[in-house]
């Protein structure tokens, strides 16, 4: 217990050494989250974070990039819901177990790049991309998302 307390104190000290920032910042196409968020359950459900992009009259593919620190007590999948549709995978999706899921000790990090084609449900005008996912084996598995960013842009 003492070791854990010491580790937690050291993490707090290390993070405090970096400049403080707000909880989340977004301009629609870009999102930066600066707070831990825990999710529990089997795949797939919304992880709440979303970005939006405006499509021209002739639809073009969209690239979504998500980069996150995390802890996970079991294997997880991560994907996106396009315009409120079902959670789907548009590229790699696997998140391997790491850490205790309670914010203590190390986090791991991962970057995903997903491509959404017009035939995947894009529409002219505003399109919303919501992060989603869940555990692949145990419904009791927990994923703790740390600082993370999500970005979307149309291809040209």
């Amino acid at each position, binding site marked *: 217990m003492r070791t854990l307390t010491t580790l937690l104190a050291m*993490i707090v000290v290390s993070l405090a050494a*970096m*400049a403080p*920032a707000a909880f989340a910042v977004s301009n629609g*196409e*870009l999102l*930066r989250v600066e707070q831990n968020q825990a999710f529990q359950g089997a795949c797939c459900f919304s992880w709440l974070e979303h970005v939006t992009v405006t499509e021209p009259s002739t639809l073009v593919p969209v690239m979504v990039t*998500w980069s996150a620190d995390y802890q996970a007590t079991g294997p997880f999948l991560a994907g996106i819901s396009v315009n409120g549709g079902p959670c789907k995978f548009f590229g790699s999706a696997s998140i391997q177990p790491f850490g205790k899921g309670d914010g203590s000790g190390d986090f791991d*990090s991962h970057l995903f790049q997903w491509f959404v084609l017009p035939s995947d449900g894009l529409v002219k005008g505003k399109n919303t991309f919501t992060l989603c996912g869940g555990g692949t084996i145990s419904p009791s598995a927990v994923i703790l998302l740390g600082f993370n960013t999500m970005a979307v842009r149309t291809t040209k």
Partner: protein
Amino acid sequence: MSNLVRQCAVCLAILCFAIGVSTTAFAVPPGEVLYDPAFHDISGGQCCFSFNETVSVIEPAKPVPVVLTYEVSFFEGSSFIVGLMVNGGPCTLYGSGFIPRVADNNPKAFQWIVFPADGLRAGTNTFTVCGGSVFFNTGFIDIQQITLAARLSN
């Protein structure tokens, strides 16, 4: 004899072209992108200090967000956090930043988003990778094949 001279000239031209192409391929473009293939043993201790890897962008009169991607091959070391110094300011996390001690020797990639309110200004803005050990003053990290890129958002 003239044929021999001509053949030598052609060979020399091909050699010069090959050297020129290879030199161009390994050159590091200035400004928004950086490629550093060298091995680095970073042993500055606990967070945070500069890693001396910098890119820059030129912002318009009304600054727009900047998206940066940092990728690195990690070999061994302590638990590290990596972030950015914007225009020489304090080392700050602009997204994920953990490189855990239990590493699998795979590349690590990060996407960082810097908004105008984070200190961007019209003209040239610099972004320097920084960080350090999470837990120990004696922490270190061995990295190689570093890429850092910055782009203005649309």
